[in-house]
């Protein structure tokens, strides 16, 4: 029987299929119904979400969630009653991002390109918008956080792999958003080109991923078969203390197809 190598699990890891509702505790679903609009939330920042901040995806600009992402008009309406952050975390050129931002009266944006953040902050027409740098920018040390602050980032999303290092990352002049629940993947988020390489679909720019990490790969030494390996994302709970806590999972149907009443 072929040897099956296992992708190294981080501590606290769960299989994706189990315990998700338990992990989420009192936190509500990633899918809400507010003002009769279905919203596929990027993340939840508070158990009391309906009174706090809401992160939503804009169709065509958000990773993963076009199916449930919102239109400009829907977001504009939502902004009348909620504090809204809009995910523009597919990488597009600055001019397109600026065009969108000028049309939205929301509290802030999530952006996945450091140069775009820098140019937005230099614009005098958007002084009050708060900018969150996407985890796809892969800040992995204190020098990154300091530079992101200089560039104009207000909130930095740090990779889940840095969970143990959060205390040493604080105090850099930016707020930190960390994962309370994350899918720890084969590569750092934002540093994976497998979809683009095998299928021509850039996760960074098209928003979707063909999940080639899930394949059962043969491990070959020279020309000799040694076993199998695959790299399924590991659902992992983190007991974090950060300015914002992110709950991930919307890219997997298991986590997405739940409504508030079901949780």
């Amino acid at each position, binding site marked *: 029987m072929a040897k099956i190598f296992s992708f190294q699990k981080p501590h606290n890891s769960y299989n994706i299929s189990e315990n998700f509702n338990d992990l989420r505790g009192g936190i509500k679903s990633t899918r809400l119904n507010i003002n009769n609009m279905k919203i596929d939330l990027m993340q939840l920042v508070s158990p009391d979400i309906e009174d706090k901040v809401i992160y939503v995806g804009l169709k065509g600009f958000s990773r993963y969630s076009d199916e449930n992402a919102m239109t400009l008009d829907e977001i504009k309406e939502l902004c009348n009653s909620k504090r809204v952050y809009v995910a523009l975390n597919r990488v597009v050129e600055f001019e397109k991002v600026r065009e969108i931002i000028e049309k939205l009266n929301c509290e802030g944006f999530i952006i996945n390109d450091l140069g775009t953040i820098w140019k937005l902050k230099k614009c005098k027409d958007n002084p009050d918008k708060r900018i969150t740098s996407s985890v796809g920018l892969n800040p992995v*040390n204190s020098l990154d956080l300091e530079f992101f602050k200089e560039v104009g980032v207000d909130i930095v999303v740090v990779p889940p792999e840095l969970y143990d290092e959060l205390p040493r990352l604080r105090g850099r002049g930016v707020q930190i958003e960390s994962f309370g629940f994350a899918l720890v993947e084969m590569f750092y988020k934002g540093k994976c080109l497998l979809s683009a390489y095998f299928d021509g679909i850039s996760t960074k720019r098209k928003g979707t991923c063909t999940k080639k990490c899930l394949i059962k790969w043969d491990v070959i030494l020279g020309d000799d078969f040694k076993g199998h390996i695959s790299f399924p994302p590991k659902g992992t709970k983190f007991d974090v203390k950060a300015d914002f806590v992110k709950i991930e999972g919307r890219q997997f149907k298991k986590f997405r197809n739940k409504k508030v009443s079901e949780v």
Partner: protein
Amino acid sequence: MELVTNIPTLEMMSKCSIEPYDAIYLGNPYCWDFEGNLMSNFNDLEAAVEILREMGKKVYVSTFAAPRNADLERIFRLIDRAIELNVDAIESTNYGVINYIKREYDVRVHAGGFTNIYTKASAELLASIGVERIMPTYELSIEDIERLKEVNIELELVIHGKIPLGISHNCFLLQFKDDIGIECPQLCKQELWYKHEDLVLKPFGDATLSGKDLCMYEHMEKLSGLNIDACRIEAISERIGYRERVGKIYRKRISGIFDRKDFEELISLSKYGICNGFYFNKAGQIYVGGV
């Protein structure tokens, strides 16, 4: 146009393998523990710099690709040593480290292929802090790269070799050591692959590389049209003879000579075939014939 490559250790550095190139990146940025890594063996680094100087080559030093806080002290020591050795540039793929070097030292900085440079805005940001050269993210097409040329900054592109496709927080190879019976740091000197039907990957330290060799031999005129400043042979995981052969072939090719036999040799040097990467807006593993 500068022809460059990368060499991880002094042992992998022969005069023949260096000769075709104008400049060499020293060190393996994907693993500190790689045996003889020039990033952490400073006596070897000094010897390597001397050899390159004697041969009239430019010297660039690579730094660890995804440095966490625990890596920073080692990176600072490496930068200090590289400055003492008066190298021509330091390469980093980490925004924080890049900014730190430009703030603290007077040295050229090259932003490597995993810095996440997708847009003209990011190229402008790096130019604004004084970065001299960038390698755009590997997944940009020729059209995307043309836009970056509008920024006043040097461009370096990979023209041949296995391109990095991902960086992990740990080394996947370590889990094989007991079954294969080879310990770190010898393990990554073996030819290990992941295969699934015709899909192939090559794990190498914290990075995973393409199984196929990106090959732009037939398409050099298209890249020349971009007026790029440097082209790289990615050879960090390759045996010593590969760097020499591929370098000689591209040295001829850059001077305008196309030889079908050279192209066939490039194909024969790649165990799992060639591809064009992302230059033609297709899946990176596809090869489009040219010329």
